[in-house]
């Protein structure tokens, strides 16, 4: 269970999150939509522990643990996963090696035995097949020379292998064609279950046709302005943020 209460954060003196409150229970998929600059990506970065974001108030706990006090790697070990909006290239680091190192670090943190290269490859190949990824993607350097779609699929592959209990997808749909979008959505849907929850950050309702959320929130000016079911996404698509937000103000 993720509990964010009254969270405020700033970047270089500039307040971005201004008292954000959100609860995500196990098994739930929450979509966060909002205009540019509303604080969507800041929320993702603050939750995953990126440097450069100063929390000025409020709290975020995951299963009762103060998330904000943990190092990024401890958050990952606690079950958190961030699918990056801009996946990072790691020249000189092989994708397979990267993924196995990450998986084994998390397994170590859980007191589980590490996987050897053969065990790992078996597991990774099975996930890649489901994501329609070519085998050679494991042999290449992490994200180096990947197309936009390949980078996003690589994020989903990492999620599938690391099996987090809470995934934050930061505009994973941006730059994807419809086929890649479907593959990414299938990757997320395959993880759905009582032990998995996700926050899907997106600009567009399009992704939510494929990953149908339990809740949709509209984030603007650093706070959740409106919450509703999947129908809210359609309303946004029809009347835009301005329309939905003025309605929220009126109410």
């Amino acid at each position, binding site marked *: 269970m993720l509990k964010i209460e009254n969270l405020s954060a700033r970047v270089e003196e500039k307040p971005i999150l201004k008292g954000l409150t959100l609860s995500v229970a196990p098994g739930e998929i929450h979509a966060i939509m909002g205009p540019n600059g509303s604080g969507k990506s800041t929320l993702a970065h603050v939750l*995953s*522990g*990126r*440097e450069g974001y100063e929390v000025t108030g409020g709290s975020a706990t995951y299963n009762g643990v103060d998330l904000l006090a943990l*190092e*990024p*790697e401890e*958050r*990952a*070990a606690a079950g958190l*996963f*961030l699918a*990056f909006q801009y*996946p*990072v*290239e*790691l*020249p*000189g*680091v092989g994708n397979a090696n*990267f993924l196995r*190192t*990450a*998986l084994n*670090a*998390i397994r170590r*943190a859980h007191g589980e035995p590490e996987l050897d290269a053969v065990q790992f490859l078996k597991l990774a190949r099975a996930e890649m097949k489901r994501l329609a990824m070519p085998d050679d993607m494991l042999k290449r350097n992490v994200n180096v020379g990947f197309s936009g779609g390949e980078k996003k699929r690589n994020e989903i592959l*990492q999620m599938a292998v*690391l099996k987090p209990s809470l995934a934050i997808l930061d505009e994973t749909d941006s730059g994807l064609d419809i086929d890649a979008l479907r593959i990414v959505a299938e990757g997320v849907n395959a993880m759905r279950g009582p032990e998995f929850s996700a926050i899907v950050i997106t600009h567009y309702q399009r992704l939510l046709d494929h990953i149908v959320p339990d809740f949709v929130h509209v984030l603007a000016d650093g706070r959740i302005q409106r919450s509703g079911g999947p129908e809210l996404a359609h309303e946004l698509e029809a009347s835009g943020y301005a329309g939905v937000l003025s309605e929220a103000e009126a109410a």
Partner: protein
Amino acid sequence: MSAALQTTAQGFLSRYEGLRTQLPGDAAVRDRAAEALRAAGLPSVRQEAWRYTNLRPLADLPFAEPIGPVDGAEALAARLPQIDAPRLVMVNGRMRQDLSRLDVPEGLRVSAFADAPTLADLPADAPMGALNTMLAEDGAMIEATGEAGTLVLASLGTDVAGRAVAFHPRHRIRVASGASLVLLEVSLGQGAYLHNPVFEIDVAEDGLLVHVRLQQESAAAFHLATVFAEVAKDGTYDFFTLNLGARLARCEARARLSGTGAIVYLNGAQMLDGQQLGDITTVVAHDAPACASRQTVKNVLSGHARGVFQGRIDVARVAQKTDGYQMNQALLLSPDAEIDSKPQLQIYADDVKCSHGATVGELDANQLFYLRSRGVPEMEARGILVRAFLSEALDAVADQRLRAVLEDALTARWAEAA
């Protein structure tokens, strides 16, 4: 030269006076070297070629003489990389048949300098070379006349009964016309010592010498190596040095391309921490047309470590169509680490392609966060990024067996530092 270094130079000179009649080889050559050393002294930071590498700490070591019997060489030999190849082992600069495995193939001849000493004058501007010429007692004489395969040349250094020693092995490597040899040279040891080897290398027409160095000297040791290589028409000298050890190390590689179409690679990497200083100095002389030289040196420096790269490329008037490339990159892992990088290009021909570059940076914060967000602990993540940085340098080592040896040494060094 500081007064303290003056005393050290004097010490070497008196040692020479004492040993003069017993040392092998042409005494006149040694006398000339002694004269040069007496006149110029040991290198000082006032000399441009030694500006960044101060030998002053050498003066704090009273070198014992003569070198007494060595205990524990077997234990040091056990630390050598295990690869299936003949090996020649020197302990404190002297050949040790009992630790060597000299079942060499046809096409390779190996002998000891002490058995058939041939000393030649070195260029006048090589002070450590002069010291070597004056005091060299032994060394490896290696000659490849065909496909000679791989040979390991190991130097084991150790203090003797707690006292520092100095040794100056003189190695000569010749690769005959059309012949080839892969040489893995490893230096390691324990305690305080000065290892001051000189390599005289000749690659004849169409010859190939791959010379991979792994420098893992003891943390109290000084390593001052000078390589003189000459490469004839269409010959290749493929040099790589990995510097991990020693308190102060300088590897000065000078290569002369004397025949059309010759190729020289002077690549390297160093990973240093604490108070270590590592200096890679290269001089490439393009003295014939249509030759190529390639240099990529990468440095990873943490703690108070200092890295030095000096790369000189001289292109003679006759050396048209020269293709020269030089790159020095440094990753600084601490605010107190330092890199001094000095390219020097002197070009007298007008139709040449020569480029050089240098970069200095820290670990990329985005890359570090990406790894950590996937659960990789910070130290491990830093290690992965450092290895990724160095792996590009190691790509220059095409021989997969040797590359694996270097990778293992890097892994061990990183684990030790962490």
